[in-house]
C-alpha cells in the first residue's frame, strides 16, 4: 500500500480565510477537507497518511517556509506527495509550485494541481503539474484529475497531457540507439510515406490572436493608452514588481495633461530607466494623446492607464493580464488601445 501525503493551504484545511493566511505549517494524520474525497478517489491501494497545510502568506512570504513544509512532508515518509488543487489562487499556486519543486528536488515523487493560468505553474519545475478547474466549485473534477495522475505515477506510468499534465515539460538529452543522421533519413522516409506530423522536436505553439475588427474612426470613440513599461507614480504605491510581475495596476489620468518628471518613474528591471524617468512620455505618450484628443483625432482619451512590467513575465501571467485588461477596457467601452511595449 502506498503512502500519500497531501499539501494544502489554510483555507482548505478549514482554518479560515485571509485572517489565517499567516499560519505556520502543520501536519495532521490522514486526510483533511478535500483530502477525504481524494482518498476515496485514490482507492484502497493508496493511503493518504498525512496532510501538511500552511497559511498562504507564510508559505509565500516567510523565508525558510518551504523547507519547513518539506521537512513535515518527509516525516510522514511518503511514496508520493500531492499538492493542491490551487485553482487560480495566486499565492496558493505559488506555494504549491514551490513545495512541489522542493519535494521533487529532494527526490520524492510529487504532482501538483492548479489551473493553467496560475502563476505558480512556472515555480513547480521540475515537478509535474496537472490541470485543475478555475475555482473551488470545480473541486470534484479537479480531484478526479489529480487522483488519476497520482494513481498513474504510483503505477509506474509516465504523466502526459492525457493525464492532464500542463506546463513546460523539460526536454532532456537521451541516448538513442541510432545516430541522428540515421534518424533523419528515417524521418525523411516517414514524411515521404505521408506522415506530415512526425518530428523529434515539436514546433513551438504561440497563441494565435484573432485581430479585432478595425475602428471606423478613432475620433468617435474612447481610446486608451497602456504600457508594459512599468511606469508608475514615483512612490510605486501599488508595489509593481520589476520582473516576473504578478500584477497590473490602473492609475487615473483625469485632468492630467502631461506627466511631470519626478512624479512618475519606471520600475522595469529589463532596461535602463534613465530616459524614461527624464521624460515619462517616452513610456506613456500622454502629451501627444491629449493633443490628438483636443484636435478630435481621438474621441475621448480613457481617463486612466493600465500598467504592468513586461520583464520575464510568464506566458501564463501575460495571458491572464491580457484577458483582464480586455475585460476592464471593454467594460469601460474603450474601443481601441495603444500599448507601448519595452
Amino acid at each position, binding site marked *: 500500500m502506498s503512502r500519500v501525503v497531501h499539501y494544502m493551504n489554510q483555507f482548505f484545511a478549514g482554518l479560515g480565510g485571509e485572517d489565517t493566511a499567516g499560519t505556520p505549517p502543520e501536519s495532521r494524520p490522514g486526510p483533511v477537507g478535500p483530502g477525504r474525497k481524494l482518498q476515496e478517489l485514490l482507492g484502497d491501494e493508496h493511503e493518504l497518511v498525512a496532510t501538511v497545510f500552511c497559511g498562504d502568506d507564510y508559505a509565500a512570504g516567510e523565508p525558510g517556509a518551504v523547507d519547513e513544509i518539506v521537512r513535515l512532508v518527509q516525516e510522514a515518509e511518503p511514496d*508520493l506527495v500531492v499538492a493542491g488543487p490551487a485553482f487560480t489562487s495566486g499565492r496558493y499556486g505559488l506555494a504549491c509550485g514551490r513545495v512541489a519543486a522542493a519535494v521533487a528536488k529532494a527526490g520524492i515523487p510529487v504532482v501538483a494541481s492548479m489551473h493553467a493560468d496560475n502563476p505558480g505553474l512556472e515555480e513547480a519545475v521540475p515537478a509535474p503539474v496537472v490541470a485543475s478547474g478555475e475555482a473551488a466549485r470545480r473541486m470534484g473534477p479537479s480531484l478526479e484529475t489529480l487522483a488519476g495522475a497520482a494513481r498513474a505515477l504510483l503505477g509506474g506510468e509516465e504523466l502526459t497531457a492525457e493525464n492532464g499534465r500542463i506546463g513546460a515539460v523539460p526536454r532532456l538529452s537521451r541516448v538513442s540507439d541510432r545516430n541522428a543522421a540515421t534518424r533523419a533519413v528515417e524521418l525523411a522516409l516517414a514524411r515521404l510515406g505521408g506522415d506530415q506530423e512526425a518530428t523529434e522536436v515539436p514546433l513551438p505553439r504561440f497563441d494565435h490572436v484573432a485581430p479585432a475588427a478595425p475602428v471606423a474612426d478613432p475620433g468617435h470613440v474612447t481610446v486608451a493608452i497602456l504600457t508594459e513599461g512599468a511606469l508608475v507614480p514615483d512612490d510605486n504605491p501599488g508595489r509593481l514588481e520589476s520582473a516576473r510581475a504578478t500584477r497590473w495596476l490602473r492609475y487615473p489620468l483625469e485632468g492630467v495633461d502631461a506627466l511631470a518628471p519626478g512624479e512618475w518613474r519606471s520600475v522595469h528591471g529589463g532596461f535602463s530607466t534613465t530616459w524614461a524617468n527624464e521624460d515619462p512620455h517616452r513610456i506613456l505618450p500622454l502629451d501627444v494623446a491629449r493633443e490628438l484628443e483636443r484636435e478630435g483625432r481621438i474621441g475621448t482619451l480613457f481617463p486612466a492607464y493600465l500598467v504592468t512590467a513586461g520583464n520575464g513575465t510568464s506566458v501564463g501571467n501575460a495571458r491572464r493580464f491580457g484577458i483582464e485588461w480586455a475585460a476592464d477596457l471593454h467594460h469601460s467601452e474603450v474601443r481601441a488601445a495603444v500599448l507601448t511595449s519595452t
Partner: protein
Amino acid sequence: MSEDDGLTRLVHQVRSVAVGEQTRFDDGHLTVSAADAAAALADEALASTTVSWASPGESVRIVKVLDAVEPRTKGAGGGGIFPGFVGPPRVQGRGETHVLRGAAVVTAGYLPRAQEAVVDLSGPAATLSPLGATHNLVVEFTPAEGAPWDEVDRALRRGVLRLAARLAEAALEAAPSQVEELPSPAARPAGDGLPRVGAVTNLQTQGAFKDVFVYGRSFGSGLPTFLDPGELDDGAVVSGQYGHPSLKNPTFMHQNHPVVAALRARHGVDVSFAGLVISPEPVDAGQKELVSAHAARVCAAAGWDAAVVTKEGGGNADGDVSLKMDALEDAGIAAVGLFAEMAGADGTGPPIVVPPERATAMVSTGNYDEHLVLPAVERALGGDTVALLDQPATDELQLPTAVVYCALSPLGWGNLTCAPEAVTAQ
C-alpha cells in the same frame, strides 16, 4: 567499379600508437617520428610544435581543441589528397584513398575567437565526442613572435593536413583491413522506384577563424552547389571554424559525413542516394533567403524527392536550416533538418531559436545546456586551464554539453536526442 564510377576506400584500422624513430604502420600499430611531424608542421608563423598521443581509455583530456583530421592519402606525396592545401586544387573523389581509421590528427591551443572545447578520452564525456574513440595525435604549438594570428591559423591548417597525409602514407604498402566501394550518386532516377534522397550541408562562412574551405578557398561568397560526395572523402572540404564546440563539423567529420554515410547504407534498399549539395551560411538575412531558395532549385533540378539539411553553428545557423527546409517543401521536396536544442539547463526553454514556418520534420541532436560533470584526469593537452571556468584543465569540471567537441554533432554523428522528461514515481 570503373574509374569514373566512384571512390574506393582502402581502410587500415589503427589499433595502437607510439612516437618513435620512424613513421611506420605495422599491422595496426602506427608510429610517428617527431622529426617527420616537425617537418610537416614547419612554418615561419610557428615557433615550435610538439606532438603527443591521447588514446581511448587513457586519463587524458584535450582542451582548446581546434580542428581534427583523419589521416588519408591517395599516394606518395599525397596523390591529390586535400586539394588546395596539400594537393593542387583539382577535382578528386575517384580512384583509391587510403584511410587510417581509428586515428586523428588534432590541433589544440589558443586561437582568437576559438571557443573552449573539450575532449575526454575516458569517463562520461568520452562517448560524446568522436575523438573519444580515436587515437589522437595532438599537435600543440607556440606561435612565432609577432606572427599575425591568421597566419598562425593558416600554418596550422596546412601543417596538420600535411601531417595527416604523411601518416597515411605509412600504410600505402599494407594490406587494408577493409575495402569500401563508394559509387557516385546517379544523376538520374534509376527507375527502381526508390525515393531520391540527398544531403544539403551548410558550411559556416563567417570569415577569420569561423570559415570553411572548399578546394582550399573560403566558401563564403559561394552559391549552393553540388559536390561529389567522394570529394568529401578526399578532403575537398576543410574546416577553419572554431566556435560552438559541440556544434562543430571538423574536417574529420566532413571526411566521414554521417548523413552521406546513412544514405549510402540504404542506397538501393529503401532510398536512392541522390547526392550532396553544399551551401554557405551567410550572415545577412537577405542573402540567407537567396541561398536557401537557390539550394531548393538546385535540388529540384536534380529530381530529389527528399533532403536532409544540416548546419554548422548555433542559433544563427538554425535560421539557415529552417529557411532551406521551407524552400524545399515549397518546391515539393520533403525536408528534414537536424537541430540541437537550447532548452536551458532544466530543459524547459524554447528549444529552437529559429524554427521553420512550414516544414515540421526536425531531428534533435541533444540539449546544448544540459550539465555534465567530467572527472579529474591525470594529463591535459592543449592548455593548462579551462578558460571558461578558470580552472586547471586536469580538474573535475562541471560543464554544459555545449563545450564537448561535436557532442551535438550537427552532421548527425551522435546518438543524443531530446525527449520529454519521463515522470514516474519509481
